[in-house]
Every structure is written in C-alpha cells, then in structure tokens.
C-alpha cells in the first residue's frame, strides 16, 4: 500500500517537475506526461518480480519509474546528459533502464506490442516462467500489430499481459472517433484471450487484477488482456493545452485522481498518518530536486565519443 503511493507520487513529481524543466527550456524535444494515469503503471509493476519484463508506450516515464528506475538517471536523460539512462541518445520518448528488464518506451505508437511478445517468447524458449507486461494505448489498438501480436501470444500460450491504458485519446482524436465499439477489451475476447476492463485510476484494483493475471500466466493460462480506463490531466504533450477535452469529463477523472486515491487509502486504512504522508511527499520532492541539480552539473557525450560509438554503423 505504501509502495503504491510512493510510486504513484514519485511519477507525479517527475512529470510535474519535468513539465517545469520543459517550460524553462531545459528539456528539449517532446515531453508526454502521464499525469492522471499513474495508477496503471504503479499497480501493474507492483505485481511483478525482478525476472519479469515490461514494455512501454511513448508516454513511458511512469512505467520506467514504476519498474524501479532511479530518478537521477531519468532526469539526466531528459536533460540529455551522459549520466542519463540512455546517455542522452534516447530522450523522453525512448527512455529505458535496460538492466531492469525494461524493453523501453517507444516513439512509434503500437510498436512495443510485438517487442513484448518477443520477450515473452524468448522466456518460453529458455524455459523461464518470467512474465512480460506490455503497456499499450487505446490509440494503438487500431494498429494491425495489436491484433497480430496478441494472436501470436495466444496461439503460443505466452506469459504475456497486454495492458491497454485507455486514456480515451490518440493525440486529440477521441476513442469514439477512432472505433465503433469503445469496449476495447472485447478485441481480446474475439481471439480467445482472457480479457478484463477495469478502472485504471484505482491503483489497488490494477495491482490485484495484474497479480491475478501474473498467476494465470505462470500456471500456463496466459496471455491476458486488461483494458484499464483512465484519462489524461492535460493535452497530448506539454505544448498541447488539450482544449478539446470536455470539462465535465476531465473533472470526473480529476475527482478520481489515482495519486489521491492511493494517498487516501494509505491514511484511511491507518497505514500512515497524514503527517507521515506529507513527510514522505517532501522526501520524494527532494529526491527529484537533487536529481535535477546533479543532472544540471553532469556533462554531455562529446561529438568525438558519439562518432566513435557509431563508427561501425
């Protein structure tokens, strides 16, 4: 319970802080925050072990943090420093801590799904019961590889869990515009895959549902599809104010904010006092601020090092 909140708040802090850094001109390129969607990464990653794998979307900071990445390396990557997880070669859209069995974020919507099935296949071939979770999006469900890949996982009984983070927008195109049947979990059922639709803003429910899916996979009953419904707190990326998002709907989801829910749970169930939570939040904020200071002082890869690195290309 404490871990769920800590992770969710750590993601919230990273995303809010990253937006500020972006506005200050310190983060270049694109920055797609997962504000409002923290519950899914948090709950899902809490349900797996070190030997398991995850694959991410282009809104991938949260997954990376939930999978255990250090904030230092993540902030440094945003600031294109050599101490970043990808040494400044990958950036926000490709961030990954490979050492944590993270297959990475992806700049191509939907492309991570076959990669995740591949990791699951590799584990089956080597006789491991490791599970692979791939996060995908409602936008990616209309891409051909969504069905193809899930079908491959199904015919091979792979330990594969596909989680659709249904935030109801593909950039600015609504789910209703993109598909006739907006219950995306049904697509899994159509090809014989156990499928669920859940409230993605409830980190505890996500955790329990994924934990159950992990158990099923490890006992040979995979794959499992989970559609987790959520909503972005703003537009597609930092420079998109999201004016097309209806206010009532946004309010509905704001009122069901996953970070608030994780915090309320913690306090309501008497696991921590409000003061203790406030102290924890402060610590997490300090961790982020310290990471920013470190990253600002870190160096960048030189052009010569880059040329050497790619000389065999």
């Amino acid at each position, binding site marked *: 319970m404490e871990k769920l909140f800590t992770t969710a708040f750590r993601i919230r802090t990273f995303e809010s802080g990253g937006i500020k850094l972006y506005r200050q001109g310190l983060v270049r390129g694109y920055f797609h925050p997962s504000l409002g969607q923290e519950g899914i990464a948090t709950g899902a990653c809490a349900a797996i072990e070190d030997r398991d794998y995850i694959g991410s979307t282009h809104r991938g900071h949260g997954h990376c943090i939930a999978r255990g990445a250090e904030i230092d390396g993540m902030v440094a990557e945003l600031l294109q420093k050599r101490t970043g997880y990808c040494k400044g070669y990958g950036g926000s859209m490709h961030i990954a801590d490979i050492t944590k069995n993270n297959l990475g974020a992806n700049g191509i919507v939907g492309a991570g799904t076959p*990669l995740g099935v*591949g990791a699951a296949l590799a584990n089956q*071939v080597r006789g491991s019961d490791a599970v692979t979770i791939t996060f995908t999006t409602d936008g990616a469900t209309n891409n051909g590889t969504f069905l193809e890949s899930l079908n491959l996982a199904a015919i091979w009984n792979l330990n594969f869990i596909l989680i659709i983070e249904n935030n109801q927008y593909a950039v600015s195109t609504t789910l209703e515009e993109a598909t006739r049947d907006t219950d995306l979990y049904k697509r899994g059922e159509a090809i014989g895959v156990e499928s669920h639709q859940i409230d993605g803003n409830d980190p505890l429910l996500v955790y329990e549902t994924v934990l159950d899916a992990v158990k099923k996979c490890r006992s040979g009953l995979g794959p499992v599809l989970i559609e987790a419904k959520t909503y972005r707190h703003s537009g597609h990326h930092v420079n998109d104010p999201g004016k097309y998002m209806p206010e009532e709907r946004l309010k509905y989801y704001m009122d069901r904010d996953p970070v608030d829910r994780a915090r309320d749970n913690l306090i309501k169930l008497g696991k921590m006092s409000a003061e203790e939570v406030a102290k924890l939040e402060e610590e997490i904020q300090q961790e982020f601020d310290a990471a920013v200071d470190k990253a600002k002082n870190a160096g960048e890869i030189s052009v010569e090092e880059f040329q050497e690195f790619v000389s065999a290309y």
Partner: protein
Amino acid sequence: MYREALREALFEEMELNDEVFIIGEGIAERGGSYKVTEGLLAKFGALRVRDTPISEASMIGVGVGAAIAHARPVVEILYIDFAMLGMDQIVNQAAKFRLMTGGEGRVPFVLRTQGGTGGGVAAQHSQSLEALFYHIPGLRVVMPSTPYDAKGLLKYALRQPDPVMFLEHKHLYMTKGMVPEGEFVIEFGKADIKREGSDVTLIAWSNMVPRTLEAAEALAEEGISAEVLDPRTLVPLDKDAILASVAKTNRVVIVQEAVRRGGVASDIASIIQQEAFYDLDAPVEIVAGMNTPIPFNLELEKASVPQTADIVAAAKSVLHADKAA
C-alpha cells in the same frame, strides 16, 4: 548445395546455443518454401522451430523483442517483398535500439529472407531490395553467393550482437559448391576475390556473382583478364579490398540485380571516385536492373535485370573507354 549449407549453419548454431530459435511461415513441418529448415523441427522440437500465422509486422517485431530480451531469434520471411510489412520493426526498432539506449541494449536478431528474379514469380515476389536496408544505419546486410559463404556468414550472423538482414537468392538455393568439413565462420566485412584478374575489376554480389563469373570466362576467351570481387556483406563493406582491386586493375564495373536508381552500386561507385579517382583509367560503369517492377513475362523479366552479355559489354566498354575518346 546453398540451401543445405544454410541448413547446416542453423543446425550447428542451434546445437551450440539453446537460445537460437526459428520462426516463420511454413518453416517447421514443411521445412520452408525453399527447404532450408527441413529436419530442424525433428531435431530441435516445436519450442525452437515454429510456424507463424501470416503476420509479418508482428513476426519481425517478435524476433526483435526476443533479441532485446537476449535470445537468438531467426525470423524467416518467405520473400523479401513481404519484409516490407515489417519495416517499422526493422527500421525504427531493430536498427535504432542500440543507439537509443546509449549502447546498453543490443539486438542480436537475424532476419533471413530471399529476393531476386527467377522463374516468373512477378513483381511482388522478385525484388532486390538490399538498398533499403543498406540505407539504414544500425543494420548489417549480408548477401552470400556461394554455399561456402552462405554457411560461414550465417554462422557468424548468429553470433553477432546487432541486427542482420541475411538476404539469400531464390536462384541460388540449388547451386553447388564446396563446403569444408568442420567448424568455420566468415567474418563480416571481408570481401572475397572470386576470380583473380588484372585488366578490370567486376564487383558483384548474390546471384550476380555466378553471372559475372560467366562474363569473366567469356572475357578471358577474348584475352581480357577480369577480377571478380564479391563483397559478401554490403554492411559492413570491405572498402579496402575494393580499393586494392581498383588500384590493381584501374577499371571497374559494378553489377547489381537491383534497380539502378538509388542502388548500392551507385554508392560503391561514389566511394571509388572519391577515394581512388587517380587509380581510374575510365569512368566506373554500373550494370543494374532497369527502373521497373519485375514483369511476369519471362523474356521481359530477363530483359529487366543484368545478363552475362550486358556484363561483358560493360567490361569492354571500360577497357576501351580511352580508345573511344
């Protein structure tokens, strides 16, 4: 035979490394359309030799993902034309992953497929698309022309940390050639002089190698000594061997089955003109496919790609370029 050499390479590497496995359409029970994978299912079982549904974009992506997760996948794509369905996974995923992860992530992935003309299989089953992959930084491009090269290069490919596009040729599967007993691999980036000569360098790869050797024979009858150089791998390209041969013969013809426009031959020609301009006694000549999809009609198919006589004519043209001037 070429296809048996490929099979031996797969067999040996699968025996050596439990994490080598193969997926593709009809490759298990049936042994693939060109019978390269015949017998592997019986030996290695359905976990490591498995058929896929027709879903190239995902099959290729699955191979890339398995490679990122440190296994050794081989994905067989029936025709290179079908690899186009998986271009995102090849170009945006496999080729970029190492750089995007700052060198931490590797993609030890082999995509085996075949291309080229032969037998009237028409426009969507006959293309020579190596230039597409040659263009993309991060991919290795291998095009073996003999059984010996096929085996040695495929074995080497299966030990590489980076994605390899292993491009076979449909016309070569039944060709015979010496393959030595015992363990051997051929490193990438080492060209092979398929025939020594002193008057002109003929550079060719894949199915253009046997055709160019025929041309060299014909030229020899006329007293012209042609050297035939097969780069074997286009990426990495053995520039040193090419430049050494140019320095020796001072005249070059580059032969490719692929269409002329935007081809690998043009790039090799540009390297030669930049780095060996003063060794040249004549402009570099390129013999290439016409800029056309491949027609079904057999005579037209033949007319659309280089034939022996075209290579002979080009060689003579660079030899007599000075006289013509």
